[in-house]
């Protein structure tokens, strides 16, 4: 599973980072950082990643098909 993040759309609400800190963080500008930006999310973090994606209030995250 890969996660696509839109820094343009991100408003920094931080719900993803609160739910799945293993996968998401906010940078100094409070914009989302995907720790697995250029690679597959390891299987052990997949469930957390999914929760984080679904919690984004502005749909800045999605799971690549």
């Amino acid at each position: 599973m890969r996660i696509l993040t839109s820094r343009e759309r991100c408003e920094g609400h931080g719900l993803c980072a609160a739910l799945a800190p293993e996968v998401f963080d906010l940078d100094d500008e409070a914009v989302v950082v995907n720790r697995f930006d250029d690679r597959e999310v390891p299987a052990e973090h997949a469930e957390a990643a999914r929760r984080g994606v679904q919690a984004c209030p502005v749909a800045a995250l999605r799971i690549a098909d």
Partner: protein
Amino acid sequence: MTASAAVPTYGADIYTDEAILEPYEHYRALRDLGPAVWLEQHGAYAVARYAAARAVLLDSDTFRSANGIALNEPANQVILGCTLASDGELHAHLRKVVAHRLMPRSLRPLREVVARRAEELVAELVARGSFDAVTDLAHALPMSVVPDFIGWPQEGREHLLEWASANFDSFGPMNARAERAMPKCGEMAAYGAELVRTGNVLPGSLGAGVLEARDRGDITTEQAMMLMLDYLAPSLDTTISAIGSAIWLFARYPEQWDRLRAEPSLVPNAVNEVVRYESPIRAFGRLAETDTEIGGAPIPAGSRVLVIYAAANRDERKFARPDEFDVARPDAVHQLGFGVGEHGCAGQALARMETESLLTALARTVTRFHLDGPPQRALNNLIRAFGSVPVTVETET
């Protein structure tokens, strides 16, 4: 317009006084009928299930907001062009002008101010022992934070609450509540226009930012007039609703208050759970741009679609034990009360901050809320709220 074949219909008016007071059985019936249900009385397709509601909100290319938000044409005309009722690039452009001031990173300096005001307010009310959780508590914090933040001058503030409620009433079907609201919406619009003409807004505020954007030529004067109201009208009743509902819920379910006090890190989750359980905004509309479908149900182009957040948030297909209030609910954060996607509530960080600050301050001292009599509902076409929740609090000492 009538329903396309193959879509179930629902005959009841879901905006009567009775339905507004007790909406949840209507919502359950709508969910059970299907992902889209034709509302005969309102000329719109209800979307009451969680998955379908989320899908409609995320597909803002098909389900448009311009001419689509309200259940009546006059209201849709009045709000056309504000961020709530615009689409695509225009919406993104308008949202950018003001929304950056509402993002969590911009609100950081405000966090301490809001927390301090919440603590002062709670200390004063706890000392009194008995107070009204709506008029004394829920009104007080947003009214002491939001008008300054937007930059509204002192004169005119006495009308804000009635104007804001009128705005939400006007978005329903054109019933008696909406008819009564229209003149007040006009007053509010005239006041916002006057602020743009005179430039009488507080320096450094969101309103001042709107005028600067106009002066730079980023937006027109007319757009500035819309934006002046865009974030004020929705930022009061909604938060007030959540705070009033929270206190009522914690009075009803004291074990949930114990749970929150034992684990204050649950406060953000508890706010999501309050918004899920008693969604402040019950529904917003959309307009289908093309022939499409919702969960397999055919929706013709030009149809009005009513996304019922308050029904989606109680969907048993999504939430386990949906009619139970549980501050530790693991997926409370998935609630749709703030909407989601392009039109997701721009003020949610501020709303969360206000509500979290109050609950945190209350959890430090209050051990129990007791209802001092029956709470009174405030009847509004869009907002689920109390007009009065009289309580007495117990404290540790």
